[in-house]
């Protein structure tokens, strides 16, 4: 790279680190004129602004938050090529920042490398140690480090709660979402230095992922009071109660089906380490087709890797067999008959809830919430008789 000319920066990745670089550039720049452009601007206009000096010889900082556009065959398209062509002519009094511009063009990247710097930051952080590569940081370390810079302390368990709250069932967490959650947490605790478990629960209690994940935690412990609290918290802030409850029930159906299959395999004598091998053959089906009469189910394929999607990931299955914080492994929280009964109740409840939501068109959701609470009572072992669930029978 040409060391003499480093007035072009291509910043990629999470917002906080990009913003920190931009702030450092601003600080080191002294007096400057700032111009910010995006896809609302024509490339020719942006080009003029890049090439036109300040009347008073001031430095200029030009930030492109999105690609300016050019008209091609009657349509506005990203000005990737025209921008590439002028990169080497950016005057010395101008610092050009390409702020998270996305392109697959290798030629563009090569041109930026020639005349400027590319700074790439992580967009996602891994949640598990065994997936880390190179200098990657664990998501919980991002949390503790970020809070440390704000003179705040959090223990690893609570940091893990925060991460799980926005990335349940995922092996990575989006750092922008995580930083926003941390910002909210800091606003909540104010000047207080130590962050407690209660702070984290209050901040996260309205997030569906957090509710679902905490709900399973409470179900596994047969803690029906906590289940009810979480459901109330969830519906209090839900934009569409019906949609929220249906989402939770779908998630329950998925989880307790998996638990039942794991238990079934255990009963048949399959060792814990071999369970993944058996279940990894189940592929994820996706809907295709426009109208109700033409919907077809076929195996989903990951567009990037072209690999057929699996129904369950290894991490998901592993988590059911592991002791987590103060809780026994989920698989050992239920016996075979309990899981059979739970699955029966869930599979009866789902169509009932969906039909109620459809009929009520979102106006009256009390019955849907009651059904969800009854399902929790079933899971927590408070209802054990099938006759008590006769009301779930479809008319």
């Amino acid at each position: 790279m040409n060391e003499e000319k480093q007035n072009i920066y291509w910043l990629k990745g999470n917002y906080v680190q990009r913003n920190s670089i931009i702030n450092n550039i601003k600080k080191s720049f002294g007096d400057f004129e700032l111009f910010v452009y995006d896809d609302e601007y024509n490339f020719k206009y942006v080009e003029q602004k890049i090439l036109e000096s300040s009347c008073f010889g001031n430095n200029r900082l030009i930030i492109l938050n999105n690609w300016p556009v050019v008209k091609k065959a009657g349509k506005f398209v990203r000005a990737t090529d025209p921008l590439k062509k002028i990169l080497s002519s950016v005057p010395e009094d101008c610092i050009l920042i390409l702020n998270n511009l996305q392109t697959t063009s290798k030629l563009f990247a090569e041109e930026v490398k020639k005349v400027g710097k590319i700074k790439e930051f992580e967009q996602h952080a891994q949640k598990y140690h065994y997936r880390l590569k190179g200098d990657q940081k664990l998501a919980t370390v991002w949390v503790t480090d970020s809070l440390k810079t704000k003179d705040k302390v959090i223990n690893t368990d609570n940091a893990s709660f925060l991460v799980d709250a926005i990335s349940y069932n995922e092996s990575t967490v989006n750092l922008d979402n995580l930083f926003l959650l941390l910002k909210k947490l800091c606003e909540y605790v104010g000047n207080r230095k130590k962050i407690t478990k209660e702070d984290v629960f209050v901040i996260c209690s309205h997030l569906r992922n957090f509710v679902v994940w905490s709900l399973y935690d409470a179900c596994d412990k047969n803690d029906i009071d906590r289940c009810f609290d979480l459901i109330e918290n969830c519906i209090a802030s839900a934009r569409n109660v019906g949609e929220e409850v249906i989402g939770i029930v779908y998630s329950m159906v998925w989880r307790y089906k998996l638990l039942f299959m794991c238990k079934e395999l255990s009963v048949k004598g399959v060792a814990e380490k071999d369970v993944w091998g058996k279940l990894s053959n189940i592929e994820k089906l996706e809907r295709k087709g426009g109208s109700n009469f033409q919907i077809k189910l076929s195996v989903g394929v990951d567009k990037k890797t072209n690999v057929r999607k699996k129904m369950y990931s290894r991490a998901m299955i592993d988590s059911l067999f592991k002791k987590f914080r103060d809780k026994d492994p989920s698989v050992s929280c239920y016996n075979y008959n309990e899981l059979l009964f739970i699955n029966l109740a869930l599979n009866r409840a789902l169509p009932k809830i969906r039909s109620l939501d459809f009929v009520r068109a979102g106006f009256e959701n009390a019955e849907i919430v009651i059904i969800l609470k009854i399902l929790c009572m079933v899971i927590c072992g408070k209802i054990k008789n099938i006759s008590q669930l006769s009301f779930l029978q479809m008319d």
Partner: protein
Amino acid sequence: MKFSINVEKFMKSLVPVEIIANKKENEGYESAGRITFDVSKDKIVAKAHGGTAAISAVISNDNIPNLNYECKEDGVITIMAEQFMKTLSSFPPSGDITIYMDGQEITASLNVDEDVDEQIQTVFSESGEIKLPNLSSKFKKQATINREIFVDGMDKVQFAMGFEKTVAHYMCQLFEIEKGKARFAAGSGARFAIADIESKNILGANSKQTFIFPKANVSPIISILKNTTSTNITIKESPANVDNSNNPAQIVIDFDEGISLIVLAIDTAIKYPDLNKILEFDYPYKVSSDISQWKYVVVGIEATNTKDIKKEHEMHNANVVAMLDKKVLFMETKSPTKAKRQIKDMKILQQGKTKEPSFCCNSAYILEAYGKGGNSGDVILEFETKEESDDGRVKPVVVRFPEIVNSSKDTLEKFTIFFATSNR
């Protein structure tokens, strides 16, 4: 609340108040579009507050001849300005009307003889009296200037104000005044317009004073002052009172008798760039030509700046070459239709090392240089080339227009535009 008043005089006295109440930048402000009348025995105080500017106007028989104001009952009312002005305009201007509260309605009734049928118009009264920010009692800056000179100067450079929100320090207009001299300037960062006016009617102050008017208020100020009768206006500025949030930084313009226009949302931290750095720079190239010769050349340049280019906000550049040997100023555009035009009889006032010095700039600046600087006399172009610049940063091109002497106003006006070149 009940008073009678002459329609024409009342409407005229309300014009400045209505402009502030209805200025377009008010959108969303709580008292936008409304006027409060504080009616008392000897006067009405009309108040409007548009967020970035407020006004208080005293309307009484003492400062407005033939107003025929008579207060029958004190009171405070608030009305929607637009509807109220329409209501007033529905009566003959020469007539007197009585305005009074009737429940939630305000009635305007034409004063007629008893045997003639009553003619009335009603409007709804609005809730909430408009409260103005506290007027400062101490001002750090104060200057007096002839109203017409001020309006002309502000109007002359208004077009050049900045428009990009990220360079907020150019979304304003500069007014500098000292005894006998005033400077009005505005710019976008890439192009500036400066009007320097000399006149004995510029009373100024003891020392040089600088005022910076925010963009949102420039148009209303010009509109209001164009429609008043004062010979002179007084402009005063005070910083915010940190102990009182209702006493913000403000520029107050006093005109006519009893009217105070309070300009708010001013940023006292803005330091306008030193224009003299450019205006007093000794450029290596100075050429002049008769502005009347620019006419067809400029039309030709403009003709290549098609509707499509403007619609898509593309930029349109022009190359300007001073052919010193031929004494020709050559202008050219290439995007995408072409114009190659010449201004003949160029006079060389100063010349550097290059035989054909040139610069490239936005063609709009060339058009402005022609359109804003009158249509006769010699226009002087001053510029430098990259090779002859001190640090490789080329100074802007300066266009000086012929001085205009206005004997009726007793003014001498020097108008200058300077604009940045493009590194193409």
